[in-house]
């Protein structure tokens, strides 16, 4: 599925300083029953966001109007657990384009990159700095530059660089995906398959 190109994103951010946010929290299993990719944002963090009677939980950050933006800043080991890509779809559908943490689970990171969400891994110190800056001023702007591979607190200029491999960076900046690339390798794949032992 095509996604919007990602170059430079300047936005306020939503802080979620919780460790080990697993994909069952991001989207509980009972909301995985669709056969199409739409509407998942409504159920993003469903059980943290709503009570059993569907009223919003007042103390949850997504229900707090002072926080908004296209960047979600999460605690260490974000996206662990289930491989459900629905978690990334829900984050994208809600309106986030970038997730920042000091550590991501592997499958979540791959899923995000495949659908156009940029996972930005920063040092624990810089993550702490981001949380503090957002706490002090919820309107704090953060700039994420994919071409430069940097994340910057706009007000102070404090910045850190992040890693992304050249292939994925090129994909995200141009809105390409792996499926197109793999289609171009069909002859190699056929030739490999014909000599495979299985």
């Amino acid at each position, binding site marked *: 599925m095509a996604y919007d190109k990602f170059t430079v994103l300047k936005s306020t951010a939503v802080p979620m300083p919780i460790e080990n946010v697993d994909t069952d929290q991001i989207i509980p299993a009972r909301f995985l029953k669709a056969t199409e990719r739409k509407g998942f944002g409504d159920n993003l963090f469903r059980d943290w966001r709503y009570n059993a009677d569907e009223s919003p939980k007042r103390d949850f950050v997504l229900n707090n109007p002072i926080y908004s933006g296209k960047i979600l800043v999460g605690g260490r080991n974000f996206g662990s657990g289930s491989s459900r890509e629905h978690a990334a779809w829900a984050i994208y559908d809600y309106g986030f384009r970038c997730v920042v943490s000091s550590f991501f689970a592997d499958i979540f990171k791959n899923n995000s990159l495949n659908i156009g969400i940029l996972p930005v891994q920063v040092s624990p110190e810089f993550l702490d700095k981001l949380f503090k800056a957002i706490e002090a001023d919820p309107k704090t702007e953060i700039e994420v530059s994919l071409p430069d591979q940097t994340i910057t607190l706009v007000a102070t200029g404090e910045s850190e660089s992040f890693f992304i491999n*050249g292939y994925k960076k090129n994909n995200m900046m141009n809105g390409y995906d792996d499926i197109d690339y793999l289609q171009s390798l069909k002859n190699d794949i056929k030739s490999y398959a014909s000599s495979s032992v299985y």
Partner: protein
Amino acid sequence: MIKIQEFAHPFKLYAMSKTATTLFDKVWDRHVIRHIEDGPDVLFIDRHFIHEVTSPVAFLGLETRGLKVMFPEKTFATADHNTPTINQHLPVQDPLSANQLKALETNSAKYGISHWGLGNPKNGIVHVVGPENGITLPGMTIVCGDSHTSTHGAFGAIAFGIGTSEVEMVLSSQCIMQQKPKKMRISVNGKLGKGIVPKDVVLYIISRLTAAGATGYFVEYAGDVFENMSMEGRMTVCNMSIEMGARGGMVAPDETTFAYIKGREKAPKGADWDKALAYWKTLKTDEGASFDVEYTYDAAEIEPMITYGTNPGMGIGITKKIPQAQEAGSGKASYEKSLAYMGFHEKEAMLGKKVDYVFIGSCTNGRIEDFRAFASIIKGKKKADHVTAWIVPGSHIVEQQIREEGILDILMEAGFQLRQPGCSACLAMNDDKIPAGKYAVSTSNRNFEGRQGPGARTMLASPLVAAAAAITGVVTDPRELF
């Protein structure tokens, strides 16, 4: 512009290598079709499993792009995640689940993919039916849109979970693009004590490494304990590799592996078997091969395990007390949030805590050995009145074994009922949901908040600990019931 570095034929590349190599490298390198400089490897996939939940959007993607399934004979479909575990002969009540099951059936038929739907005698949990039908073999690359695909690593395969975009890649090209993970070896040496089973071994390892301790790595399990373990036990261990963040885990194939595979329906036969066996015997880590990190544990240190928190790394020996935040190695706020959800406190004992529900089943502990273990404890005893127990086989073949071996009689005499196969309460996509606030001892793999139903509180443990809790109604050391 991206530079693509083309490898020589992977077989030759490997044959020329004289250096000591790990099992993981041997299998991975053999499947690399291209290596992209400053990018991922293009990895050929030998076996692809699909189920009803993570495949429909991938098929939709194929249609949008006008692509076909490149090798339909390498993909296998089974319905498991949202299937009911009673009255499977009746139409599925939940219209959304029924719709997904129908989509799996329709898509499989359309593209010529083998499909074991509800009611098929081969149906069951994807990670149970793959191995028991000989689809899973040593040296393969295996993927599925399910993180517990790591289970198949028990056969010396590289097996891991993928997202739906990647399911679409495999359907359309039989390849995915992956950065090669780093390598970790975990050795457990010595002899396990009485009442200590593979689930305890893996919960112990995760408790030591934490829920993120192996992220970025692929694990090889080695040492006496795994060498002496059955295939089913190895599957339980490899299954939970993802719970410490690992991409997957594997055990080198040996005589135990070959004996398990031989004669299974889709396993090689005759001359093909001999040829395969000769190759499989080369699949082990060479002496002197290096890993990025190694951990070694002593089997004698392991006791029956149980979790007290909301990630699988929060586990302790069943006779121990709940640790304090700093001992548990996590941030205080997150730790307190976790204990508050469970209704537990630091320094409390786990033994004696009330249990409302017991679940035995799932891709972790839904195989015949697990039900034998469960039966060994409950035989001649009665289920505690206040406990609701869900006994869910991993497949119809397991269900059949339970009947044939007389385990069903033992269950019924003790006041238990057997349900029909499926993922069931492991992720509670069907009606098997633990009510809010209730405590479950579960043989499944995740104790996340709400995993077994909104508000449900999960304690992960082995089939023996589950059986002991079902009989006494409280958390109990199963060694006291032998």
